[in-house]
């Protein structure tokens, strides 16, 4: 049995994959990694398929060891990484040996990291996914956040564990300018809003409230000048939807959003920018929204996926292997 043992669970670490697709009509949140790009990149760097489960680490960090020599990768923003106290880079394919202690430490500049392991975290699949649904207390590891002492099974990899070479600029999607521009497509209920209020939404610089979580990111700033209290009957909801509740400060629905909601959706964050938004820090990162059209959004998502295709299997050059394996 191959496993990964949690030495320190942090506060928000959980098993996540690309989410529970297709169960929204039963009221099941999609869930999945907050940072889809980090998950896909991490999986590819260790030779997994994109949809394989990994460990999502939040503020609070994470520490673990593995039962066998293997390949791991840690992708995300705002974290540092060490193997047996030797600093190593994120966004890299790394060899770790049995029982080496890997520490993922949260610092500044981001919120979530993905720990991917060759073979993936092989907890029981529930409704087609291994993601943890905290609201329903199912999926992932016993339906809960990870704690010290948990031993999660690691699956057997279809692809042999070679090191993989990321392009230099793999994490360029996060390159930050301030305020961070998050691109959106106009929402289905934008027309319920006076034009002036919508303009205010696009011109304003927001920050995230500290009560933000995997379900939703609350924006802080000037409430939008509208007294439209659109009385809407519930409709379907997706991650990225920006709802305007009666407090007139928008909420961006994130990975764990319930699949229905009832406040007007004024805009929807494009899929390729959800990882960047997910990484914004409450009270710190200034955020601005920029409207684009759905076709542009599709092209940007396509570009993001093609970026991942630049991750190459390394022709196990001894030099690189030795470098990566030098951590003793």
């Amino acid at each position, binding site marked *: 049995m191959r496993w990964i043992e949690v030495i320190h669970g942090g506060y928000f670490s959980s098993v996540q994959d690309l989410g529970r697709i297709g169960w929204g009509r*039963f009221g099941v949140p999609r869930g999945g990694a907050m940072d889809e790009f980090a998950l896909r990149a991490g999986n590819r760097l260790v030779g997994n398929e994109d949809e394989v489960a990994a460990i999502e680490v939040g503020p609070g960090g994470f520490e673990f060891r593995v039962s066998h020599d293997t390949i791991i990768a840690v992708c995300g923003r705002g974290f540092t990484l060490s193997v047996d106290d030797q600093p190593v880079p994120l966004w890299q394919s790394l060899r770790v040996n049995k029982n080496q202690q890997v520490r993922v430490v949260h610092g500044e500049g981001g919120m979530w990291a993905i720990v991917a392991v060759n073979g993936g975290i092989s907890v029981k699949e529930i409704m087609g996914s291994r993601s943890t649904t905290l609201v329903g207390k199912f999926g992932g590891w016993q339906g809960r956040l990870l704690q010290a002492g948990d031993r999660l099974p690691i699956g057997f990899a279809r692809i042999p564990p070679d090191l993989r070479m990321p392009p230099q600029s793999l994490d360029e999607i996060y390159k930050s300018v301030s305020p961070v521009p998050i691109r959106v497509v106009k929402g289905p209920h934008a027309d319920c809003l006076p034009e002036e209020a919508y303009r205010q939404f696009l011109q304003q610089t927001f920050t995230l409230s500290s009560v933000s979580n995997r379900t939703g990111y609350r924006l802080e700033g000037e409430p939008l000048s509208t007294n439209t209290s659109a009385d809407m*009957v519930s409709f379907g909801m997706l991650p990225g939807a920006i709802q305007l509740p009666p407090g007139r400060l928008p909420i961006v629905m994130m990975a764990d959003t319930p699949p229905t909601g009832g406040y007007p959706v004024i805009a929807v964050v494009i899929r390729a920018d959800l990882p960047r938004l997910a990484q914004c820090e409450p009270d710190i990162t200034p955020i601005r929204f920029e409207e684009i059209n*759905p076709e542009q959004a599709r092209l940007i998502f396509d570009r993001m996926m093609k970026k991942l295709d630049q991750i190459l299997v390394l022709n196990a050059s001894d030099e690189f292997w030795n470098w990566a394996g030098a951590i003793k």
Partner: protein
Amino acid sequence: MNSKADFRIEFFGESGLLVIFGERIDCELNRKVHLLAEWLAQKSIAGITDAIPAYASLLIAFDPLKCNHDLLSTLIEQWAEQGEKSFTHPGRLVEVPVIYGGDYGPDLNFVAGHCGLSVDEVIRIHSQAEYRVFMMGFSPGFPYLGGMNPAIAAPRLQTPRPKVPAGSVGIAGQQTGIYPSESPGGWRLIGWTPLKLFDPEGEPPFLLEPGDRVRFYPIQQEKS
């Protein structure tokens, strides 16, 4: 008759499309939602990842690299032109046993008082109708059931209960519903069903589906 004027199609990001039939809770509007959902399911269109029916709208989520708004809009308009002939089954009928009142339905007396009816009349009216699962939400597997007789409508609790047991049957406004798992909740509880509505590891995990028909029937608590 369906016609183009019956609904509007809105972008929901690059990966979604919201088909809006109206802005109210209404059996006829909801029927159209399920008609379209079922028609789309039968077409099994590549790239569709989710189709979430709600009271009066259907949210279609898709992989933007495999499907797109134009293709879906065209299909939906095609559906509208074909009309309802494509509707093949009227939804399964699921019968749900309920122990009404007592500890199982702590608000049954309130509902009776509020509606000026006897407890037995409330039970009779509640178990007489055939309901439709308008949509699911709130928590996994929670069915919002439409078609309740307005004579037994009752307002939500002012302060929701922190813990409502799984299986509780409640009333809120003109709707009735069943709590599939223990959760906080503000519906007026009139009874409880021993049926399991949601089992994450079950095959299938859910007793009910959106579009299903539901009928309640009263049972007595077994004497121990």
